[in-house]
Every structure is written in structure tokens, then in C-alpha cells.
């Protein structure tokens, strides 16, 4: 799990741990969040502590080191969740090249680097599941930062092409694209924007990270054997 110290990533880690998985996660900056996540995942796993790695997902050396240590400890990786993401709420006129690069690096390059590294053990095992976390921002015409929408759209192409490339090894690659949920971006939106969103949502509420985590769990589980290259949009009927 990349970006597993808080929000949706943490909820997915806890759900996986409760389902019996050994969990490893990465985080980039906030050590306090990571320690709290470590404790929560340990509790969810009935005492089995997760492996925790600090670094940026766009740093190839960090990726190699992380995947190498997991494979050395556990013998392989069955499931990779590319969850790490970032955005900045900026109009294009104020969006500097460095902003563009940072969002593309974390959201897209990170998924590429971690997938490439994790696939080696998955191909050896002739089994694996890769799930990337997209966004409804790539599904609809909405007010979203253009670099973020472009990055999440890139994950769609990445998912489809990678699914086709590694399907022969019994590896499934899918994309979960949530709408707004009770963590992350929704916390920083002004109330009138949230109200607009909820007014368009058939279910009239934000998702909880727990219910998105249950969906993620299904998508990477043995229950899902024939979905690949698919995107699942979970936006409450937006």
C-alpha cells in the first residue's frame, strides 16, 4: 500500500489486515500519522505489525528498497495498492511547471515504479492484484485542478494497458475511482462546494473511507477473478 498512513490508505490497510493480510505501507512525511497507522493496523491484524517505509513514491531508489525488503521478508507481494496521491487546488494560470511535475510524479510515476517493482514477484508467482486509486475527477467535467485530473486520467490508460500486458500471468489490474469521501480533499472544500456535490449525488452523502475500503478489498480478493482493466467509480450516483 503506498500512502498508507492516513485517510483512505489507512482504511484500506486496516480492512486488509482484518481480512488476514500482512500489510506493508509507505508514507512520505508525517511520522506521527505513520506511527498511529502502524498501531491501528497492528490492532486490526490481531497483533501482527505492518512493515512501514518512509519515502516518496517517485523515488526509484525508495521503491526498489521498499519492494526488496518486503519480498525478502515475505517472499513476495500478492497485492499492490497504488494509493499515494497529491493535489493542489490551483487554476492553470498559477500552476507552475514544478506543481505539474510534482502531481504527475506522485500520482502517475509512483504507480509505474511500484507496479514495475512489485510485478517481478507477481510474475514469478503467476498471480497478483494491482489496484490503483483514481478519482471521479477523471470521469466527469468538474471543477478539478487540471494536473490532478490529468494524472488520474493517466491511471486509466495505465490500468488498461498494464492489465492487457500482464493478464497472461494471471495478474489483474484495476482502478477504483472514488468521488468525495469523508477524508482528504472533502475536508478542504468550502461548504458551498460540498453542498453542490451532495446535491448532485443520488445517495446524498459522502462515502466513508471504510465502505471504499470494503470495495477495494473485494477488488483484490479471490472473489474477483474475472475483472481486469476495469475502472470502478464509487461516487454515490453522481
Amino acid at each position, binding site marked *: 500500500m503506498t500512502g498508507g498512513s492516513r485517510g483512505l490508505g489507512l482504511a484500506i490497510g486496516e480492512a486488509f489486515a482484518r481480512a488476514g493480510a500482512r500489510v506493508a505501507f509507505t508514507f512520505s512525511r508525517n511520522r506521527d500519522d505513520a506511527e498511529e497507522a502502524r498501531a491501528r493496523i497492528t490492532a486490526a491484524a490481531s497483533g501482527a505489525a505492518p512493515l512501514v517505509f518512509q519515502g516518496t513514491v517517485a523515488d526509484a531508489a525508495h521503491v526498489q528498497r521498499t519492494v526488496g525488503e518486503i519480498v525478502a521478508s515475505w517472499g513476495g507481494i500478492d497485492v499492490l495498492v497504488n494509493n499515494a496521491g497529491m493535489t493542489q487546488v490551483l487554476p492553470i494560470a498559477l500552476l507552475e511547471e514544478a506543481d505539474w511535475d510534482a502531481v504527475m510524479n506522485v500520482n502517475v510515476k509512483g504507480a509505474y515504479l511500484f507496479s514495475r517493482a512489485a510485478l517481478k514477484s507477481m510474475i514469478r508467482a503467476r498471480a497478483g492484484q494491482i489496484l490503483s486509486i483514481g478519482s471521479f475527477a477523471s470521469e466527469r467535467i468538474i471543477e478539478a485542478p487540471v494536473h490532478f485530473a490529468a494524472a488520474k486520467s493517466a491511471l486509466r490508460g495505465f490500468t488498461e494497458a498494464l*492489465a492487457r500486458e500482464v493478464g497472461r500471468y494471471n495478474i489483474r489490474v484495476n482502478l477504483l475511482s472514488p468521488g468525495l469521501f469523508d477524508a482528504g480533499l472533502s475536508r478542504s472544500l468550502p461548504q458551498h462546494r460540498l453542498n453542490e456535490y451532495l446535491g448532485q449525488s*443520488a445517495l446524498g452523502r459522502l462515502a466513508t473511507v471504510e465502505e471504499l475500503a470494503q470495495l477495494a478489498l473485494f477488488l483484490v480478493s479471490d472473489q474477483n477473478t*474475472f475483472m481486469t482493466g476495469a475502472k*470502478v467509480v464509487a461516487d454515490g450516483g453522481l
Partner: protein
Amino acid sequence: MGAAARTRALVFGGTGTVGEAVVRGLREAGVATVFGWHRARERAAALAAELDARPLELDLADAGATRAALRALRDGGFNPDVFIHCAAVAPAAPLAAISDEDWRQATEVSGHAAVIALQELAPAMAAAGEGHVVLVGALDRAQSLPLPIAFAAAQGALGAITMAAAKELGPQGIRVNLVALGLLEGGLSGQLAPSLSKDYTTFSALHRLGQPQEAARAILWLALENTYVSGKILSVNGGI
């Protein structure tokens, strides 16, 4: 937010290849199940006996009879919180040979039957504050494939119904989704051109056809576990 237990299901097309796997899964989950059947009387009886599920004879091409059967079910006290529509017919005629009756059958059994079921079942679901509808179609219309036109049209309508019904019924707590299946071993897939199966095996990411049980597991997740996905098409197709 955990999924509340769902206890009563109605399945259209319960004696079909996918429908039977769905009914089996529902009963394994302890869900009281009524399943529709049309021609397969003996199969329906055997399934009912084996799984302790209730068979309901339904000609989905007959709108009036379908509506009456659903009303009788309701009047008998069976108000499902889950509805799964697995029934379809696949007239294989090329364009020039499609009869009016072919077209009517294909569209009645797929889209119109789904709408009738929503009309008849949604009020009780809304009164209960929760309902889960899963329509099951073939392929997700994202690809240009050599399918019989009447079949493709009937299946395509299911996607439109899903999106519109999810919007209208969402505020009442009813989720509506479509599982768009790829080619499977058995069932309607066997009625399509053999070359299509061969191409599918060659070009799909998993290089194989699906099993009905794999389809059923995705359908059952949406029907029994999903809480937030609505108005969506879930492509379960092996990557095509």
C-alpha cells in the same frame, strides 16, 4: 458504514447459467430467494428443491403477466430488498433478418422487464429505506463488437436504465448498478458466433472466457455488500 444484512432476493432468469450461480450464492448467504423461470420447468423444480428457493414462472416478454406476477408476489408478503435481473434472450439474426418479434422479445425481456420490476419493487424498498438492484448485461458497450443488433440494443438499454434509475431512486436509498459481463463458458455466450469466442480468448487480457461462478461473485458483491456504488457499470469481462 457496514452493509446491513440483506434477507430477501428476487432473481429473474434463475435457471440460466449465471442466474443459477447467483441463486446458489444467495442461498449460501442465507438470503430467502424467489427466482423466475420461463421454459426450464424441470430445471426450476430441481433447483428449488436443492436450494430451498422458490420458483416463479415468468414470461418476461409478456409485460402484463410479469407485472401481475410481481404484484401477486408482493400481495403474498414477499418484498425483496435485493433484485437481480439475469434474464436475456439473444436472437442471432443478422440485420436483414431481424423480425419485429425478435426485436420485441429482446427488448421486452431485458429493458422493459427491468423497468417493470423497478416500478413494482421500488415502493417497498423505498418504504424500508434501502434496496439493491443489480442488472446483468452483456459487454459494456465500450467496444465495437460483432453482436446481433437486437441483442446489442437490448443490452445497451440496460446501461441507460441503470444510470437514470439510480438518479431517481437514490434519494430513497435504492442503489442500481449494472454488471456488464464478457463472454462466459456456457449460457448465452454459446449462442453467439463461434469466431467471437475465439477472438475473445485471443484478445482479452486474461486470454480465456469467464466462468458463470466468477460472474456471480461480482453480482453478489454488489447485491449483498455494496453500500456506495450506484448508477454504475461494472465491467466483468476478463479485460477486453
